[in-house]
């Protein structure tokens, strides 16, 4: 790692890979899985919360949110549902991927509401004809990649998507905020992503873009054993969440809810074909696409027959860039690949080091040329 920093500093390249994958890679994908839920109550005013598209079948979508997003909550306990208080519910999808679902007292649209008794959860079954580009991929294990500078422990990066609603300001929906996992209890996750009330019911993702929790609350540092004066996001861990909602879902719903990894692997397979036939431009495009679906390297991808290979889109993206004589970009991607630590266990790592060395030589020469020209 130190060597990589040295190389990049030498070349004057910004180490932009550092904050894991999500920020510039699959933010749209995460947002596309998130819905905004605006609830107008009898007493006036509209509150905004969030939800996650768990899965979809032919005519309906299944949206998971926090129960209090619709029914409100009083401090310390969750009230029983009181539908009479709600005048209007509007569920919006990112970039209008589908028309908003609007339910009012006059027109009932939501097919079914299933609420948890002991957990702050609500599953909304809504009619939806459009095929959505993505629904949630579930994961019970946050992926760690960053090392805490103080404790030296590995901290898992997390991402929350929701509506940023600050006092006196217009809500900014589908905001992605990042943080790290602070504490993990059997049922709850605490994280440092700066969520606000509009994130309630919204998703908490790991750095691979998999759903690891549902944000339900904000806790003080005192409550969770953290720094005083710092607020922490509280999320229901996905394991217990699924225990609760699984019985409300159609049998194969969750099983079919993870097309992202399949999409990533299928795209990677096509990308590997492009690598094999040395179509580097196509390889670059497809590797980037695969990264959009799944940024975390590692795991086995079926190529053909009995051939499996390690999922290494960043390494291969770097290779494609290298073949396109874009050494600077290639080095950045290889650096990112090394950070994820999957490539080190693969036979391609030796090639990576070899190409890295060549690239550095090339860039050194280029810099020298520029310096010489500038000096004249």
């Amino acid at each position, binding site marked *: 790692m130190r060597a990589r920093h040295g190389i990049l500093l030498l070349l004057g390249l910004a180490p932009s890979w550092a904050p894991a994958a999500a920020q510039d890679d699959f933010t749209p994908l995460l947002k596309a899985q998130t819905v905004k839920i605006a609830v107008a109550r009898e007493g006036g005013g509209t509150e905004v919360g969030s939800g996650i598209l768990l899965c979809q079948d032919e005519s309906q979508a299944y949206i998971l949110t926090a129960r209090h997003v619709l029914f409100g909550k009083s401090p310390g306990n969750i009230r029983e549902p009181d539908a009479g208080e709600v005048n209007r519910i509007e569920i919006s999808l990112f970039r209008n991927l589908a028309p908003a679902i609007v339910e009012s007292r006059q027109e009932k649209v939501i097919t079914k509401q299933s609420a948890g008794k002991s957990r702050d959860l609500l599953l909304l079954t809504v009619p939806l004809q459009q095929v959505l580009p993505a629904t949630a991929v579930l994961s019970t294990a946050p992926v760690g990649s960053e090392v805490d500078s103080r404790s030296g422990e590995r901290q898992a990066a997390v991402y929350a998507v929701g509506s940023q609603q600050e006092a006196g300001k217009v809500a900014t929906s589908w905001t992605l905020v990042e943080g790290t996992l602070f504490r993990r209890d059997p049922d709850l996750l605490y994280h440092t992503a700066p969520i606000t009330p509009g994130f309630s019911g919204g998703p908490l993702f790991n750095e691979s873009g998999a759903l690891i929790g549902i944000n339900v609350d904000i806790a003080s540092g005192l409550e969770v054993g953290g720094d005083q004066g710092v607020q922490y996001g509280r999320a229901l861990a996905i394991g217990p969440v699924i225990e609760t909602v699984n019985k409300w879902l159609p049998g194969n719903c969750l099983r079919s809810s993870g097309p992202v990894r399949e999409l990533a692997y299928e795209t990677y397979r096509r990308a590997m074909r492009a690598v094999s*036939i040395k179509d580097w431009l196509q390889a670059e495009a497809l590797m980037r696409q695969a990264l959009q679906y799944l940024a975390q390297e590692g795991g086995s991808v079926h190529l053909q027959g009995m051939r499996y290979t390690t999922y290494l889109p960043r390494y291969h993206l770097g290779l494609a860039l290298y073949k396109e004589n874009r050494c600077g970009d290639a080095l950045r991607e290889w650096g990112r690949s090394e950070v994820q630590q999957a490539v080190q266990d693969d036979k391609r790592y030796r090639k990576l080091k070899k190409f890295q060395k060549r690239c550095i030589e090339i860039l050194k020469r280029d810099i020298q040329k520029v310096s010489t020209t500038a000096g004249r």
Partner: protein
Amino acid sequence: MRGASKARLGFWLLGCCLGASGLVAQTNDDINSGLQFNFSTPGARSLGMGGAFLALADDATAAYTNPAGLTNLTVGGSEFSLELRQWRYANAFTDRGHAFGPPSGIGIDTVDGLRTAEADSEVSGISFLSLGYVLPKGFTLAFYRHELADFQAGIESAGAIVGSGERRRNLFRVFPARSSLDLEIVNYGLSGAYELAGKVSVGAGVSFYQLDLASRTERYFRGEQDADDDGDVDADDDRLSRQPGGFFGPPDFLGDNLFNVQTQQGDDDTWGVNLGVLWKINPLWSLGAAYRQGPDFDVQARYVYGPRGPSPGQSANPNLCSPSRTRDCLGGQGVLHVPDVYAAGVAWITSQGRTKITLDYDRVQYSQLTDDLINILAREAGVFDRSQYRVNDGNEVHLGFEAILGVGSQLVATLRLGAWYDPAHALEYTGTDEPLLTRFQPGDDVVHAATGVGLVIRENLQVDAAIDISDRFKTASISLVKFF
């Protein structure tokens, strides 16, 4: 797949009456044994899946099986493969017994009904060698060497007796015979494939086939029932005919008792083509189809009397047969046709290739065997009618299963199972001549069971092993694939 040679040769090769499926007889020699052509698809992986591979065709063995499948290599990269096979055959043939009447009870004529015997043979060698190479723009090429057929057989028949014992003068005993056959057909092929739009791949190949065939059937004299040649069959004849070489006696295989010899020689080469298409309907389903043209080879057949024959060194009929002359002739020039094959298959593949189930149907045109059958039997020289000999086309069904047991970065382990139905395709005589009916009996349908395992080590090397077993045939295979 299994083929057969279309033998227009008109004489039979060796050994008749091998009831085994997979036989390919070329002539109507008195021992026309089935040539068990080794037409199963190459590759230990394919063998372990019962040869059901058309719609997968996802390694370099596709070059022969379904060349369109070579486009799969564009995903995985170039590869070199080597396969070693061992074939064990149990050739079944009519050895002795009494048909079309009860046994007389004299000498060896005590067995009611025909009895078959089995002769084992074993061949092994490099059966497939290939280099599959991915070219820019998505073209794929494969060079390969394939043992299309590798067969050896050796049989010995005591000679069955036919006819009614009540009128013993009407009995006929097939001449005791010894036969041997060595057949090898090697295919040097070049196949190419390209993926069109719509996930449809097409492929074609051209093959240079080489035939090396040598067979020899020796028929030994046996006496007549009227052993003392006094015009009557009586107790003296019964006593004399029990002696070795007598009508009811054990065979006399001594050299000076050699009655006649039929030989078949083939040293020819020719070209053939194969075509294929592969349609990956979606990640779960794929369809494949292929056509494999069987090569045609010139073969020379001879009939010569031995020392015990009426005119040693001469033929019973000086006229030589040819594809255009089939009557009043003996031996000559024939054509060995390897049957064409039309095949189609479907494959179901689960997510990440963990499980594969494949089903193939092969139509093997065994009937081509008799298209130019020529005569090698002296008794048929004047009356030979090709239409009385037939081999039915075969409808093979192959079913295969492959399950990935585990996938790791260092090792991928696989288990395979398969089975296939191999319909009878022995040369069958449909006329009324009883001795010929005993020699050319319909074959049996055979079901093969197969299993295999495979390992991929560090994404570099694939090792597969498989075995295919049926009542009479056993094929074992091990293959190595090196990925680049």
